[in-house]
Each structure stands twice: as structure tokens, then as C-alpha cells.
């Protein structure tokens, strides 16, 4: 069928062009923001260049340096547009002597190590500026650095495209009006500002966990974290975040069965991704050698210990408790205490775990995993009615369908237990 063949070739071409756009968008916008000092102008210019590329690339082929082509074209377009306005003439003068005729697209040498990467680093700190609310930080990062379309960003927040477009406009308005700078923060402010960037990337990754609709956010989070590590190779927490994501991601193939979450102890560990585990563990080892521990490195180390074990029983629980103690000393949150309590339970038994869980239960009363952990512990103690109540409460609070399916299985299971404890 010649028609089908043609369509396939065109589709593949369209997909290639789309893929290139996605990869190039962040670099192009970052460079143009640096050049023009305005995100909206930069986005418009890049959009114009994409329109031109959509027109030309399918017949002429994708140029050898697509990023260079897009950036040069966008830059020339922006300058042409600016020349037509009075404000623009002022700006173009500031930009220096720019030739009015377009140089051959792709002629500008944009090496990966050069200014383009510095521009992306500046822009990520702008997007994740603490003067912007967290949901705006995440939306801007996904749109401007991840190159997701407004509609894709909207879907990852479960809001309409119109609502997301408004949100992005508001965030960009604040950046422009309040003059949030495009700048890598000074050394003194870097640790705090970097924490904000890392939290945004981790939130992006976690939003894609256990929700098939939003699964692409996980690879986007990993891609952005990887880019950040390349940009800031001396920041161990950035490396720690990448390792944490890789080690979590390695278990994804075994994390679900028939649309329900599978607990760590019940996972088929042969399905874990060895490549990701090795990469994540190598980063954790490098972090340990550097000896500047922080919350993300410690969480990665915890995941590395889990990934080391062939089974739940073979897990080095004392090592995990020690790591949770260390983590709690730098990040004293009830969620860390919850995970520590679970680890303690694996050493000292369910009665000890329950005591530890009950001590923090009030702080985490609306957190589904708190009730799921209590349910599992109560089930091990043979207290099936209480276990069932805890699982029901967890199911009521659970954020995703996968969690609810898992919890439904547990509710059913605790009814079938009889009076026999599941484990000793």
C-alpha cells in the first residue's frame, strides 16, 4: 500500500522533527532569554523558528546542528521583529552590531560546553526562584527547560490547558515585573537556591510515579537532573538527586502488577533495571568518597542499600536504620520518621514498629502511607480488624488508582487472614 508507506515515512519525519524540537527547546529559549532579557520574547522567537523548521525540514532534511539552526534563526527573527519597534531599536543597539542579513543557519558555533549550557543554568535558577510559588516553579521548569507543550504541562498538573496557560503568563509576568534575575546565584546563596531547584526536579519525577498518565514526567525529571549534574559537577546534592531518581526508577518494572502497587518485599527483583542500579550506586559511592552528605545523597544511599539486596530478608536493615537516623538529623520530617519506623520493624519485629508508628501517627494522619504501614504492621500482629480499618483509611486517602488497587487487595487479604499472623 503506497499510501500507507508514505504516511509512515511522513509520520516518522514528523516524529523526528518533534523529538528535535523537544530536545532543542530548552537550549534555544535559554540562549534567547540571555540575549533578549525576556522570556516571552524568547519563546515567541523560538516558536517562529520552529514554524520555519516545520516548513523546511521535512523536504530539506534536519540540519546537522538542529539546535544551532533553531537558535540562529530565532535570534535573527527576534532581531528583525525588534527593529520594527522603537523599544526594539534601543535593544538591538544594546545587542551590538548585528548584521541585518541572516547568516547561514547553523553557522553560529554552539558547542555543548559553551555559553548555551551556562544560559540553561541561569534559566533554571530563574524558574526555581523562591519568590515564585512552587507550582509556578514546576510549570516554568517543565515548559521552558523541559520543552513540554503547555498542554503537556497542563496534563501533568491535571488542569486545563487554558488554566495552565494563565498560570504560566502570571509566573512570567512576575519574573519580568519584579526583575527576577537570570543569574547563577552567588556562592553564598547557592546551597539554598540549589535546594529549591532540586526540590522542583524531584517533585517533577515523583508526580510521574504510580500514575501511568503522568509517567513521562519521570524521564523528564531524570533528564533535567542529569543536565543539572553536568552543569554543576561539583554539587554532591545534585548528583545525589540523580542517583535517587535512577535507583527509584530501576525498580519501576517490578513495582506494579495488574495496575496495583507491589510492595518491596513482594517484588520480582530480577526485573529491576541493573543498568540504572549500577549507575545510581556508582554515583552514591562517589558521594560517599566526597563525604559532604545531604538529604538527597542520604536518600539515594538508602535506595542503594535496598537495590543491593536479593530479597527483603537479605536487606541490610541495621545499615538502613543508621542511614535514616542520619537523614532525620538533617531532615527531621515525620515521613523520614515513618520510614525509619518501618526499617526498625524489620529488625525488632512488628510490635516495635507499631510503637514507633503510633508515636508519629498524629503528624501523618492524612498521609496514606502512614495508614498503609500501620495496616501492614497490624496484619503481621494478627490484629486483622484494626489492620482492615487502617487499610480502609489509607485507601480513602490514596492519591492514585494504583495505590487504591493495592490497598483494596490488602483490605481483602486482612479479612481472609483469620487469626493467624502473616509473619513471625
Amino acid at each position: 500500500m503506497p499510501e500507507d508507506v508514505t504516511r509512515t515515512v511522513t509520520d516518522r519525519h514528523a516524529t523526528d522533527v518533534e523529538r528535535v524540537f523537544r530536545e532543542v527547546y530548552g537550549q534555544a529559549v535559554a540562549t534567547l532569554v540571555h540575549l533578549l532579557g525576556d522570556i516571552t520574547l524568547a519563546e515567541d522567537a523560538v516558536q517562529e523558528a520552529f514554524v520555519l523548521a516545520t516548513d523546511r525540514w521535512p523536504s530539506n532534511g534536519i540540519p546537522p546542528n538542529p539546535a544551532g539552526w533553531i537558535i540562529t534563526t530565532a535570534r535573527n527573527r527576534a532581531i528583525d521583529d525588534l527593529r520594527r519597534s522603537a523599544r526594539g531599536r534601543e535593544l538591538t543597539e544594546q545587542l551590538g552590531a548585528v548584521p541585518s542579513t541572516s547568516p547561514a543557519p547553523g553557522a553560529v558555533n554552539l558547542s555543548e560546553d559553551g555559553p548555551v549550557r551556562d544560559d540553561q543554568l541561569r534559566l533554571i535558577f530563574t524558574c526555581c526562584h523562591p519568590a515564585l510559588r512552587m507550582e509556578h516553579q514546576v510549570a516554568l521548569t517543565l515548559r521552558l527547560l523541559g520543552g513540554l507543550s503547555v498542554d503537556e504541562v497542563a496534563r501533568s498538573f491535571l488542569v486545563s490547558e487554558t488554566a495552565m496557560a494563565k498560570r504560566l503568563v502570571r509566573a512570567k509576568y512576575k519574573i519580568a515585573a519584579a526583575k527576577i534575575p537570570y543569574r547563577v546565584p552567588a556562592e553564598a546563596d547557592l546551597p539554598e537556591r540549589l535546594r529549591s531547584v532540586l526540590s522542583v526536579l524531584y517533585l517533577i519525577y515523583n508526580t510521574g510515579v504510580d500514575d501511568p498518565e503522568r509517567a513521562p514526567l519521570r524521564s523528564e525529571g531524570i533528564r533535567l537532573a542529569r543536565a543539572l549534574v553536568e552543569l554543576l559537577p561539583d554539587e554532591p546534592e545534585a548528583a545525589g538527586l540523580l542517583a535517587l531518581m535512577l535507583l527509584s526508577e530501576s525498580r519501576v518494572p517490578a513495582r506494579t502488577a495488574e495496575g496495583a502497587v507491589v510492595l518491596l518485599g513482594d517484588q520480582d527483583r530480577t526485573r529491576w533495571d541493573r543498568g540504572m542500579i549500577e549507575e545510581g550506586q556508582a554515583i552514591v559511592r562517589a558521594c560517599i568518597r566526597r563525604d559532604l552528605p545531604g538529604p538527597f545523597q542520604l536518600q539515594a544511599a538508602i535506595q542503594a542499600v535496598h537495590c543491593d539486596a536479593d530479597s527483603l530478608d537479605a536487606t541490610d536493615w541495621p545499615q538502613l536504620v543508621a542511614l535514616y537516623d542520619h537523614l532525620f538529623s538533617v531532615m527531621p520530617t515525620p515521613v523520614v520518621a515513618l520510614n525509619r519506623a518501618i526499617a526498625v520493624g524489620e529488625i525488632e519485629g512488628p510490635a516495635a514498629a507499631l510503637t514507633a508508628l503510633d508515636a508519629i501517627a498524629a503528624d501523618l494522619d492524612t498521609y496514606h502511607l502512614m495508614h498503609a504501614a500501620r495496616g501492614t504492621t497490624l496484619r503481621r500482629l494478627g490484629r486483622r480488624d484494626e489492620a482492615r480499618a487502617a487499610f480502609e483509611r489509607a485507601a480513602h486517602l490514596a492519591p492514585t488508582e494504583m495505590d487504591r488497587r493495592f490497598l483494596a487487595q490488602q483490605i481483602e487479604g486482612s479479612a481472609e487472614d483469620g487469626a493467624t499472623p502473616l509473619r513471625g
Partner: protein
Amino acid sequence: MSQYLLAVHTEAGGGSHEQSMTPEEMQSFMGKVVALEAEMKATGAFVFTGRLHDADAATVVRPSDGGLVMTDGPFVESKEHIGGFYIIEADDLDAALVWAGKVVEAIDAPIEVRPFFEMPGA
């Protein structure tokens, strides 16, 4: 350079902590404020400052059928009202936030940082 408003918010009803200060505390508080304003002036950041009476002293005037209507009290019934402000010059928000931090430290009250609209060509 841009201008920013650093609006100091205080609790309505004269609940300002100044009134519960001992003379020594008051002196230390004033010392901090004077030192901060001296620093603003020395670095060229200072534009203007003002302190306002309590929101009970406010009157709202609004247009109504070609005339005016006045109401006693502030715009919004709220626990916190603007009690005073600084106007400063700063390169960008990060620089303005550094001053904001110093003001909060000196007066121990929350402030709102708002950029001034810049007139094109001004």
C-alpha cells in the same frame, strides 16, 4: 535600577509589639532602624520611608454615581495592615530581597516586596 516598595505589615488595633517594649528594648529597636536607614543612604538604595498611623485612622473614598462616598476604616477588614514602608532602589529582585531581609531583621515584622511600575523611556 528599579524601585521596590517594602511595605511593613503590622497588626491592627495598635497591637504593635513596640508598645510592649521596655525602654531598653525600644532603644535597641530604634538603634537598629537608624543603622539600617544609614546603610541604605550610604549605598544609594534609599529613596523614601514613611510610617503610617493605625488602620483605624483610615478613610476610603470611592466614586459613586458621579459623586463620592466615604467610608470609615481601611479597604479590607484584615488583621494586618500596612504600617509603614520603604522605597528603595535595587538592581533586581535578589538585591531588593537582601534589603527586605535586613528590614525584617531590624523590625521583626513581615514585609511585602512590590516592584514599582517602570514608565517606558523614564
